[in-house]
């Protein structure tokens, strides 16, 4: 009843004064999260490897781990997160309206989204992009060998355009086999109507598992488009943006420095100044973002470094088995490059 009265009062107030979310943003997000005792994190309604609840209702995935890491940095507990499953259509409004504090839901960072929605992207936790899958029996090991191939693609997507651009710029011929819906496209590829199938690589790996005899299909190493996925926050709170950004950076730096979930305790005694700064043994980087100095230690201890999270959710230790590829660290030939903590 009390709730009902409050709702009625709030509704009236909202209608009368046209309350905007901006007006409600006086206190910082960090303070709100701390006083609430919980982080509200927007995730996918169910995408294998990135964000999905298991049978017991525990959320798991690469995007989910990022929220757990933020929770670990703030609360020293990876489980003080309420996961809000969101569809693609409602994700940005949920963030704008303050229903969630951070959106970690395989969202592509584009200029229009970054500049016109009142949102800020805090980094890139997965470099996705369009790739090709072929039957292993074809013996193809590179997309450059696909000249003259027939390629199955879903109609009316940017995928189709990227495909045309790639083949034209490489002066290769191809035969387009277009279908209206994704399941038809997959079925056609599986039935041998085309030599290759193209869509975003993360999706290719998931589809591969549904084809029967997953090992009969290979995902080629070439990536022909840019789909950088990352966490998003509301604009207007630089401290909160920093917390999310540096949570991701700390996970990446930890992997680069060889600090992982199992050795982080012994690493506390390391002489390496970079590791000492990361783990809060030197300087006061935690205070700069409003957190305790062991914030990064908690992240690595409770959630793991980026490599741990990748392997567990989408990589070698998961059914998906996605290769690190572009998501390898820069020193291993990938694109993951975090600014240093110093």
């Amino acid at each position: 009843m009390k709730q009902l009265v409050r709702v009625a009062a709030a509704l009236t107030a909202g209608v009368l004064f046209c309350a905007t979310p901006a007006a409600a943003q006086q206190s910082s997000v960090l303070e709100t999260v701390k006083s609430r005792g919980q982080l509200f994190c927007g995730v996918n309604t169910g995408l294998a490897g990135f964000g999905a609840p298991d049978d017991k209702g525990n959320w798991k995935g690469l995007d989910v781990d990022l929220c757990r890491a933020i929770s670990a940095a703030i609360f020293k507990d990876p489980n003080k997160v309420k996961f809000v499953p969101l569809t693609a259509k409602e994700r940005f409004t949920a963030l704008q309206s303050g229903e969630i504090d951070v959106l970690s839901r395989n969202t592509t960072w584009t200029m229009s989204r970054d500049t016109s929605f009142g949102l800020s992207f805090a980094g890139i936790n997965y470099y996705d992009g369009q790739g090709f899958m072929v039957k292993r029996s074809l013996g193809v090991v590179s997309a450059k060998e696909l000249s003259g191939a027939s390629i199955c693609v879903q109609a009316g997507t940017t995928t189709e355009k990227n495909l045309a651009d790639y083949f034209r710029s490489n002066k290769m011929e191809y035969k387009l086999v277009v279908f209206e819906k994704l399941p038809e496209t997959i079925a056609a590829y599986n039935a041998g109507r085309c030599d290759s199938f193209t869509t975003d690589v993360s999706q290719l790996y998931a589809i591969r598992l549904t084809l029967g005899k997953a090992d009969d299909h290979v995902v080629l190493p070439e990536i022909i488009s840019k789909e950088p996925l990352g966490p998003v926050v509301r604009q207007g709170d630089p401290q909160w943006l920093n917390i999310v950004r540096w949570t991701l950076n700390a996970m990446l730096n930890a992997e680069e420095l060889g600090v992982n979930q199992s050795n982080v305790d012994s690493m506390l005694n390391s002489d390496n100044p970079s590791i000492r700064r990361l783990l809060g043994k030197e300087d006061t980087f935690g205070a700069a973002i409003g957190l305790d100095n062991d914030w990064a230690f908690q992240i690595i201890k409770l959630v793991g470094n980026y490599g741990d999270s990748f392997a567990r959710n989408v990589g070698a230790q998961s059914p998906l088995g996605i290769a690190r590829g572009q998501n390898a660290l820069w020193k291993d030939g990938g694109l993951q490059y975090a600014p240093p903590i110093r």
Partner: protein
Amino acid sequence: MATNPVRSAAVNRPRPVGPSGLNAITQWLHQNLFSSWGNTCLTLLGGALAYWVIAGFLDWAVWHAVYTGTDGSACDVVGAGACWPFISAKLQIFMYGRYPTEELWRVNLTYVLALVGLVPLMLPRVPGKIWLTAYMLLVFPVVAFFLLTGAEPLGLPVVPTSRWGGLLVTLVVACVSIAISFPLGIILALARRSDLPLIKWPAIFFIEFVRGVPLVMVLFFASVMLPLFLPEDLTINKLLRALIGVALFSAAYLAEVVRGGLQAIPRGQYEAAEALGLSYWKTMGFVILPQALKLVIPGIVNSFIALFKDTSLVLIIGLFDLLGIVQQAVASDAKWFSPQTAATGYVFAGFVFWIFCFGMSRYSAWLERRLATGHRS
């Protein structure tokens, strides 16, 4: 005659199987299926089509189906049909969502309490229907609410609605919406036929507005727009938002169905009630509504069935009803990925929906027959 055992047996049996029975069957076949060349062709064509569809389905669902296994690899066999172990492994999720296992008895108890009230109400000639109605309207909703959501003082841990899912959410949304929208629909229908503009016009406006927008939009508005107007610290439960949206939506449709029934009642009935000196509410309650509602049972049940199936739209605001949770399991559990996992999940969800909708439709048919006291030419 009686000395011939074969003959007497055939006479005594309601459906004879002897030679005369065979004759009856061939005669029936001849009359109904093979009476002319055209009919014979159609029969053979239809039979072939039915065989093709049914045999194909049985092939998939029964003969070539996989029945045991602990993950998707068991179903990953060339030519394999339905992947039933996926359903049995996920059955709890499909039925209850992520409701904590040790608290499941609360959901089951709620179901039992609902059946205890509903079944006698739906059967004819059960004494004490007044008490049962009072129980269903006043006691049960309160008990069910605390059982499902929890009450710390009573030792029932709170289970947030974000952990509800599957058939539980489907039933909660459908039942609460039906319970709210039925009386609301009747009131709206009466209001729309009122002579007072202050009552009539708001009712017309509400009905026409709600009927004019898709349910998806109503849900979107409740889920996405509403929080924009509310202060940041106030969050109305998502499930509650969906409930209100679906209930209001179906009330508008029901109002029009009921209005159809009201208009079918002859003027003489109103005048007779007036002549007896009955007030407006007594006229409606004792004379008009019982007849009008009886007339529109098919329409009402039609609305309820549509509502039951519409509950699957709550998926778009991030609630997982039966269909939503099947979709989620199909898309997100890499352990169970196999060529037939998705199809198996959808067939299962469809079958559960069908059981409930078919049940409702049979009950309404039975109710119609039982209440058929007149108006039959």
